[in-house]
């Protein structure tokens, strides 16, 4: 995280005014998804896509949230003890990216925090135990620094429980 002050940003659900073609994070798979697939996923209710923008047009970042279930036997033993032996509902942070022109100033954290906030708010309407992410190797440290824990047998898959996130941001939040 940098010490720079970041202000003037807002998050919006992906809409036709957003300049999808102008977004480039540097990873062709993510760029291609955002430019060609994201709207379809939204229209088919497969994902919700949220965009970081300053002007409602140019896209500085985006992320996707979807429903997922977790096999409790795949979780760490100390975590499993607190859960029933059924598929555990969770929220998948499927894709997340920051535009190349805006990388290196801490916006990744801003995007992640909004994703966690939205997931937590959503979990208060439809139950969700945790946020799940499948991290690329170079992003593992980023998520672990933000309190995510790896699945024991699948170290690239990580989770952060809603309860832990809510506890950490209580008192900091805008609307509890």
């Amino acid at each position, binding site marked *: 995280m940098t010490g720079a002050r970041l202000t003037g940003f807002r998050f919006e659900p992906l809409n036709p005014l957003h300049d999808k073609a102008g977004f480039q994070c540097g990873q062709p798979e993510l760029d291609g998804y955002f430019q060609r697939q994201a709207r379809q996923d939204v229209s088919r209710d497969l994902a919700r896509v949220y965009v970081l923008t300053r002007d409602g047009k140019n896209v500085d970042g985006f992320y996707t949230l979807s429903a997922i279930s977790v096999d409790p036997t795949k979780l760490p033993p100390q975590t499993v003890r607190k859960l029933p032996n059924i598929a555990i509902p969770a929220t998948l942070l499927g894709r997340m990216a920051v535009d190349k022109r805006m990388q290196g100033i801490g916006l990744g954290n801003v995007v992640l925090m909004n994703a966690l906030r939205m997931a937590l708010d959503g979990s208060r309407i439809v139950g969700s135990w945790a946020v799940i992410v499948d991290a690329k190797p170079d992003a593992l440290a980023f998520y672990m620094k933000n309190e995510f824990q790896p699945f024991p047998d699948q*170290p690239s898959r990580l989770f952060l429980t809603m309860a832990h996130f809510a506890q950490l941001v209580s008192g900091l939040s805008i609307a509890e």
Partner: protein
Amino acid sequence: MATHPVHPQIESLDQRPVSLSEVDDIERAAERACFTNPPSIEPWMLTVADAEVVIDSWENPRKPGAHLKAAYAHYLEAIGQR
């Protein structure tokens, strides 16, 4: 020191050149990570970035969740809610 061994996985998983002093830190962090990571994660699976997280938490101990709390405060500021 010039011949200090670096495990090939560390070299291959990180694009950035690794300084010799950093190699020492990474090895110390990797040893320590054996005790903190799940058993399925071998210490040599750590990337340099992973190792830096371990080193940071080792040399600059913070209260649990301090990084996330700081990130959340920056987030609130970025969206004009703080």
